[in-house]
Each structure stands twice: as structure tokens, then as C-alpha cells.
């Protein structure tokens, strides 16, 4: 059944970016305000799911050139790598480090290795959710 929902598709396109931005904001806010990798990742995948509903699987698959399974492994690599990175500095596994930097445009910013770890979580969550939904959706 081929539907032609112009209104839905147009709105979905706009809303998609709004959700994505909100998701990214949530992700970065995580350390100081409610949010974080889990919510950010879920919301991002929610946005993609919305697009999938509005258009169809194949279009979305063409639009996103990434295989979501790769995203899972990339995320795991980030998380485990961040945890293992502390070993190089001869501190116990999973020791995080942070400091405050003066960056142009942003002003005083704290940079935190936990952020890298959270980025891994973010990627894994997107990868997992999308892999699940995509495989189920594609199956006949």
C-alpha cells in the first residue's frame, strides 16, 4: 500500500531536525543537567523512527549511509577505550579525568573523559535501537 502523505512527510522532515538537536543538547547537557547518553541516543533513534514512519525503510536506508551495526561496535570501542585509556596513565581502569579550558566561542568549558564514555553509550544506544527496529521492519 503506497501512501502519499505530503503533510506528514514535510512536518516529519522539520521535526526530525528539531528532535535531533534536542537529543544532541540532552546528550551534552548530561553531565550537569538531566540528560545523557541514554536519553540522547534514544531520542535520536526516535527521530529516525519518525522519518521511517513518514517515508519508508528503503529511503531511510539510502539516506543514512551507515550500517547501524557498525555504530554498535564503534560505540563499544569508544566506551571500552575510554575506560582502558586510563591504564596508559598508570591509574586504575576506568579512572576519568577532567579539567576546565578556555575555549573560543564557548568560554570556560569543562572537558571530561566521561563525555567520551558517554559518547560511546550514545552511539551504542542508537545502533542497538536502530538495528532492532530495522531488522524487524525489514523482515517479511
Amino acid at each position: 500500500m503506497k501512501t502519499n502523505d505530503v503533510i506528514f512527510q514535510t512536518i516529519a522532515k522539520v521535526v526530525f531536525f528539531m528532535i535531533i538537536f534536542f537529543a544532541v543538547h540532552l546528550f551534552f547537557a548530561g553531565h550537569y543537567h538531566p540528560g545523557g547518553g541514554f536519553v540522547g541516543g534514544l531520542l535520536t533513534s526516535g527521530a529516525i523512527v519518525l522519518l521511517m514512519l513518514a517515508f519508508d525503510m528503503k529511503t531511510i536506508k539510502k539516506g543514512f549511509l551507515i550500517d547501524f551495526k557498525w555504530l554498535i561496535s564503534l560505540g563499544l570501542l569508544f566506551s571500552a577505550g575510554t575506560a582502558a585509556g586510563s591504564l596508559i596513565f598508570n591509574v586504575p581502569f576506568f579512572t576519568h579525568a577532567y579539567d576546565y579550558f578556555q575555549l573560543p566561542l564557548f568560554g570556560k568549558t569543562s572537558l571530561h573523559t566521561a563525555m567520551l564514555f558517554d559518547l560511546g553509550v550514545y552511539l551504542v544506544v542508537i545502533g542497538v535501537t536502530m538495528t532492532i527496529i530495522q531488522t524487524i521492519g525489514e523482515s517479511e
Partner: protein
Amino acid sequence: MSLLHWAILAPFIMAACVPFVRKKATAIHTGWFVLILPLVLFVSFLQYLPVTMKNDSIMQTADWIPSLGINFTAYVDGLSLLFVLLITGIGALVVLYSIYYLSKTKESLQHFYVYLLMFMGAMLGVVLSDNVITLYMFWELTSISSFLLIAYWFDRDRSRYGALKSMLITVFGGLMMLGGFLVLSIMGNTFSIRELAAQAPELNNHPLFLLAMILILFGAFTKSAQFPFYIWLPDAMEAPTPVSAYLHSATMVKAGIYLVARFSPIFAFSGYWFWIVGTVGLFTMVWASFNAVKQTDLKGILAFSTVSQLGLIMSLLGAGSAALHFDSLDDNLYTAAVIAAVFHLINHATFKGSLFMVTGIIDHETGTRDIRRLGGLMSLMPITFTLSVIGAFSMAGLPPFNGFLSKEMFLLSMVQLAELDLFNLETWGLLFPVLAWIGSVFTFIYSMIIVFRVFGGKFQPEKLEKKPHEAPFGMLISPIVLASLVILFGLFPNLLSYSLIQPAAASIVPSIIPNGGQLDVHISFWHGFTTEFMMTIGVVIIGIILYKFLPKWIGMYDYFPGKVTLNNLYNASLYTAERGSHSLTKSYMTGFIRSYLVYIFAFFITILGFTIWVKGAFRFDSSNTASIGFYEVGLVIVLLIATATILIAKSRLTSIISLGAVGYSVSLFFIIFRAPDLALTQLVIETVSTALFLLCFYHLPKLSRHEEKRRFQIGNAVIAAGVGLIVALIGISAHSTKLFPSINEYYIKNTYTKAGGENMVNVILVDFRGFDTLFEIAVLSVAALGIYGLIKLRLEKGGEQNENE
């Protein structure tokens, strides 16, 4: 790790190399490669002789689990050195023999030699360990490798049966022994045998002493095939003959003897030890020699004769314990029993080893071991005949072979027991020499059967599969070496007396030997017309008469009830256990998921409800609770309505949407209860999973209720209500009982200072408890890949399966 440790481990290392050698060097028989190891070990252990001859010992310790006091302690004294030399010496001969016995092309030699080397290493470990836990470990390893060796021809039913039987019985004994070891080490607060022996007098008065002793004897008796556990040994004869020669005559079955000898310093002072070890041994000797006569399989005869000879050694060790009751060595007649035990141990290894090899040769050259089909081989196989005469006559206790000497010493010890005024021997003492004599008569008879049934009588070529001829020379080397030792030790027994026998015997009864002193070991060939000599003559005369008239009285065995045997008992108990456990399992493993859930929940209700009731754990304290607001009550009502809708929903769409409603209400609760992170996550998750449900919806069947019987429904409702009640009760009680302050203060204080964040929940997730999160995303990834696999990857099982998809 010292050289001694490496010597124990060397066979295992070698075993790891064997498969590669077998693969690469196909032209040479793998056995030649393996042969190096026992030879090297034998020679290198010989250098310890000067040490042990002075009754000294060497101990090397390597840490294994130091926190538990379990160390890999290697200990060399006279007793262990004797066993090491037997293991490596006989081992070398057996390997040499196997090279000719096992075909290079037809047999899977890599398995055989791996198992054999494993066994050799395990045996070395048993006799060289001072730590009981290490000893136990190696002990079980001998059981396992013996299992593998017996089942070497695993395509035969009998092999598998025999292997399983030996494993079940010896491992059963091994576990008992482990219990004994643990009891003993709790009593003495150490795992070291040497340290335990030092505390022997105190241990003797301990209430658990008898328990430890009996448990350890279980181990020894099962391993050494004593009555009533001997039944595994005849079935173990399904193993290739080199294995039987090695394991079931010279080494493994002697592990039990070793154990009894090793623990003699601890237990032997007790009267129970004397009676149990002595009588079990003697009875086994008589019973097995009596049964050996009726066997028709040549290896069967040898198996029973091994049981019988082991019983003999065991009874000597029991009798030898009487020696400890004398303070000085001067008039101590009973050390002779210990000396006889050690001497006979060596002799048995030599003559029985050669007899097994001879049997293997006969089997190999004629294709049968059935004495009813054999006969008249004397002229066809003269060397084999000579070897078997030497072996069998030594076993029968005839001069000038070594068996004669040790048999005489055995009879002497038994006669002396009758005169001992310990342990109520006045009344029962006479039984010992009488039983010993009867056993010896039967031993004489079956020894004659081995020689004259096979080699004498009429040659029956029509009953044989092959045309018999003398064995190749290589196969004869090992039995010739052993047979020459039989004669050598027979003529010059004193070659052994101070080099091997004295140190070994001294390790068995250390307490009565003065410092720097030695036992008096002088074995003489001729000592006049003594009682024991007269007994031997009697044995020979009666034995010959009985052998001559064997056909007349062999029918006597038929009078024994055929059904009531230990073997049938074993089979029946195995069968019953299998059937019983099968039907028991069947009765509750119904295959219905409902049954399993009912078990789980019923257990949950019972155990928790019982605990709450017994411990009086229920608390109700509403003082410290938050207020109930208008919104909360409304939400609770919404939540409950949604839940009820799921329960009564007739369509799947209703139930999925209601589940979504429950999820959204929960996320509203999260908002009210000040958990913004949770609320956010729950909202998004609920959306995504509803989408997921709807996606699967397409593939899932219409919600069929599959209405159950009323009875089941009520049962389900009762269980469900019970679980709900218990959960609520636990929740209320837990909330009303605050035993200690919450650990949350730590997180609240340190979130900013230590982790540089402000959102505590997120900081806990990525920093304080980052490990959890790492594993969580790993689990999620596994779930995603699992789903991918379930849907995308399918086994191609033929067209029919694919059509369904």
C-alpha cells in the same frame, strides 16, 4: 618449582607434544619417542637412592594456593622412591612392549600415549605429594586417565562398560578419601602428611579419628580393588594388554597400597586399623583366588589373581601395624610383615607384569585368550612358555623365584599373628594362618592353570583364528627383562634388602626405628624346616592333587547362587538410579512453561512468606512517609485502570496500548518523584517500544486467550495474588526498617568534587559505576545482534523450512 616438580609435570608436557610427533613423524612408531621419558626419569630418580638408603628424605615445596595452606610439595622418601622406580621402570618396559603390541597404522596411537603419559604423571604426583589436596588431585587424575585407557577401544560395549565401572567405583572411593583428608586436616590443622604424622598420638584420641580412617580406607580399598569393591578390576581387562600390565598389575591398583602404607604412621596404632586392613586384605585374597580358578579368560584369571595378591599385600600391611605396639626393634617380629609387604609389592610387579605381557603375546599370536580354546602351545612358543612358567611359578610361591621368598614371609607373618596377644587375637588369631593357607592353595591352582592349560594339553588349531607362532623379539624383551628380575630377586634377594626394602619399610613404621637406626632386613633362602616351609609343602601337595582332579570339583562353583553377585548388585543399583532419576526428573520437568513459573513463584511465596512470618520481619511505620497528593492518587487510578485493561483485553491492540499507558503513567510518577532523567528515558523508551510492539504486531497472531480451565485460572490468580502480596509486604517492611543510613551521602558530596559533574544520576552512570554501564551497553549490543541473527540468519534446512518463512 624444583627439578622434582618438573619431573612430575614432565609426563604431562610430553603428553602435550605427542599428537604433534604422531602427526609429523609418521614413519616412526610414536612409542619410541615416548619411551625416552620413563627411561630418563628412572635413571634420574636412581640418584635419590643414596639419600633414602640412609632413611633420609628430600622435600621441595612450590606455592600453589598459599592462602589456604595448599602447596605443591614433593616429598621423596624410601616409600615414594620405591613407587617412583616401579612407575617409571615398569612404565618404560610397558611402553617398549606396546610399540610391538599396538599397530602403528591401525591404532590411534596419539590417544593411547597421551592417556598413558597422563597416567604416569598422575601416578608420580600421587606418590610424591606430601600435601593431601595435591595427592587427591593426582589421585582422581589416575582414575580419569585409567578410564580413558580402559575405554581405549571405545567402539566395544564391554570396554565402555568396564571403563565406566572402574571410574564410578574409584571416583566414589576418591571422594570418600577427600572427605577423610579434610576431616584429618581439620583435626591436625595442616594439609601436610608429614606434619600430620608428627601429631599421630594426639590424632589418635580425637573423636573424629575413626571417621577419617574409614573414609581414607574407602579410597584405598576401591583403588586397590579390595572386597567388595574388586568388581571393577576384572571388567577393566577390556583395556589393551599393555595397559592392564601397567595399570592393573604394577601401578594404579598399588596406589591403594601406597595410601595405606603412607598413612600407616598416622593410623596404624589403632586396633581398628589392624582389624580392618588385615581382615579385608586376607578375605580379599582368599575370595579372589577362589574365584580366579573358575575363570576361562586368561586375563580374567590374572585380574582375579591381581585382586588376590593385592589383598595379600594389604593384609601384610595390616599385620605389620602390630609392630608399632612394641617399643624396641630387638624382639619385634612384626616388622617382618611390613618388610614382606614391600618385598611382595616389588615381586608382584615383576611377575604379574611379565604374566600380563605373556598373555598379551598369546592373545596377539593366537587371536584368543579363552583357555578352553588354547592348549599345546609349548612347542610352538617356547620362549613365551618359559616366561610364563617363571611368572606363574613365582606367583604360586615356588622356589627359586622371588615369589617363594615373599610368600614364605607372608605365611610366617600370619603364623606369628596367631601368637600375638593384642586385639583379642587369642580367640581369632588362628584364622589368619588358616585363611592364608587356603588362599595360597587356590593361588597355586590358578597359577598351574595359566601354565598348563595354555601350553600343555592338546593343541587345537581349529579353534584358533590365527596360526600361532613365537612372538617377534621386540615384544619379548620386556617380559624377558621382568622374568630375569624374578629369578634375580629370587636368588639374590639381598640386592634389594637395604637399597629399596629397608627404606620403604622404614617409612611405613617410622616411630619404632631409633634415630639413625635401620630395620633388620635379611632375606634368606633357606631357614630350616619351619612352620611356613611345611605350609608351603602342604600347599604344593594339596594344590597338585586339587589341580589334577579339577574337572571333578569345578562343578562346585555352580552351587553358588548366580544371581546374587556383587556385579549384579552394581548393575541393578546403577539401573535403578538411572530409572529413578529419570522418572523423578520427568515428573516435574513437564515442558510446560507454566509449571516452571509456578515452581518459581510458589517457592518465592513460600520461602519469603515463611521468613517474614518466622522472623516477625513485618514492620509498618507510616510516620516517615511523604504526603499523598491529588495528582498521585489520580495517577494511581489511571495506572490501575490501564493494568486492569490489559488483564481483560480481548484484542492485542488494546493490551499493547494499555501497556503503553502503564509506561507513560510510570514516567509521570518519575516526574512527580523528582527523577527527571528517568522520566525522560522512560518517555522515549515507551515510545520506541510501542513502535516496536506495533512493528511485531504485524507478524504476531491475534491475541488468542487460549482460555484455560477454571481450576487453572483460579490457581494462577492465587499465585499472582500471593506474589503481589509478598512484594507489597516486603516493600512496606523494608521501608519501615532503616538499619543503617543510606550510602547516597557519598554520591551527593563527591559528585562535583571528584567527578566534576552536577547531574548525580549521570555521574553515577558514567563515572562512579561506569563498569555497570559498560556491561549494560555490551548486553544491549548482544541483544541487538541476537535479534539480527534470529531474523536474518537462518539455517538452511531444506526447501520446506524456507517456504514457511
